[in-house]
């Protein structure tokens, strides 16, 4: 009888452990994609890096943006999808099209499914406001693709999924106070193989 009782308690603890830890990991992974500010394909949260972050945001930042700075110093916008809400896939070509941002310096970086830089022969992982090729209207287009392009080519991963981070260091005060006010670049799918 005692053995049966012990087995019941162990079973309850084990099932609870699987549900509790599993749901925590799932929420931490999912929270990154449903943060409070959404602009086109981009998501972010005003309390990234802040001491006021709640436990879910803090865990998410530890998972995908460890050592992120608070918003007075830097803003981080992440994109896991294109403008249509479809996940960024390596077999597709994308154009990231935008203009200047009110910040001292900004960059756009692509990552693989593990949140690390995408290996490529050119060691080209990002573009920033200084090394982009701009057009005469003060706009730019970055080509995210597995196939080399002549201008602003950001090599895509060979497999898995892709995500993009837009960093803006020392943002203008108006942008830091209203992170949804910037005209963020659009991520448009061109074609898929």
């Amino acid at each position: 009888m005692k053995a049966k009782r012990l087995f019941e308690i162990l079973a309850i603890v084990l099932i609870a452990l699987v549900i509790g830890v599993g749901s925590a990991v799932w929420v931490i992974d999912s929270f990154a994609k449903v943060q409070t500010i959404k602009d086109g394909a981009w998501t972010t949260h005003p309390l990234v890096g802040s001491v006021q972050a709640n436990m879910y945001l803090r865990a998410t930042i530890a998972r995908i943006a460890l050592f992120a700075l608070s918003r007075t110093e830097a803003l981080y916008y992440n994109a896991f999808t294109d403008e249509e809400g479809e996940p960024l896939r390596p077999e597709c070509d994308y154009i990231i099209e935008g203009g200047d941002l009110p910040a001292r310096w900004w960059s756009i970086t692509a990552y693989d499914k593990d949140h690390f830089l995408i290996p490529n022969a050119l060691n080209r992982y990002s573009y920033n406001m200084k090394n982009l090729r701009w057009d005469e209207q003060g706009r730019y287009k970055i080509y995210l693709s597995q196939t080399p392009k002549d201008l602003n080519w950001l090599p895509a991963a060979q497999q898995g999924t892709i995500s993009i981070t837009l960093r803006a260091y020392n943002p203008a005060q108006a942008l830091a106070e209203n992170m949804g006010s910037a005209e963020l670049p659009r991520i448009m799918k061109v074609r898929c193989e």
Partner: protein
Amino acid sequence: MKRWSYRILATLALAAAFHVLTVMAFPRAIMVALSWKGKDLGQSSNVLYHQPRVTADSRVVVRPSPDLLYSVCAYDLSKAPLRISASVPDTYWSLSFFASNTDNFFVINDREVQANPADILLVGPAVSYKNPGNAQVVTSPSSRGVALIRILITDENRIEELTKIQRQASCSPVDQGL
């Protein structure tokens, strides 16, 4: 029937507790895992390590910026405060501190530093200290954490020069003799 209801309720209550504990412990667990990785690489606390430029082979910290040079110091203030000294370049530079739960509780950049080299004394929570000079004093909410210096690479031709500046930074415990 009643007995099964109790079992289900107990399972759900325990699952909720495990859920909250996991989420709360996750950031600290990541910091502990990072310190283990550092120890595997022969790195110690209270020493500033200058990282080479980030590439696709850099797989310690997720989502690094390839446009920055990083220097990292995992600190332990339980025995003594830490003094951080760093030359500040004419490009974006920042020194930031992260508590053991990953909160960014302090950051200062090249436009805000009071002197060059920057001179910061990081002290533990609720401890008395002596400032050995005119260092700016910052109090960490936890005894352990991470100090991180970022230097922006504005031009590929400046990497050698910026790397030299990066390597002039240091962090070291301050003997208090109290």
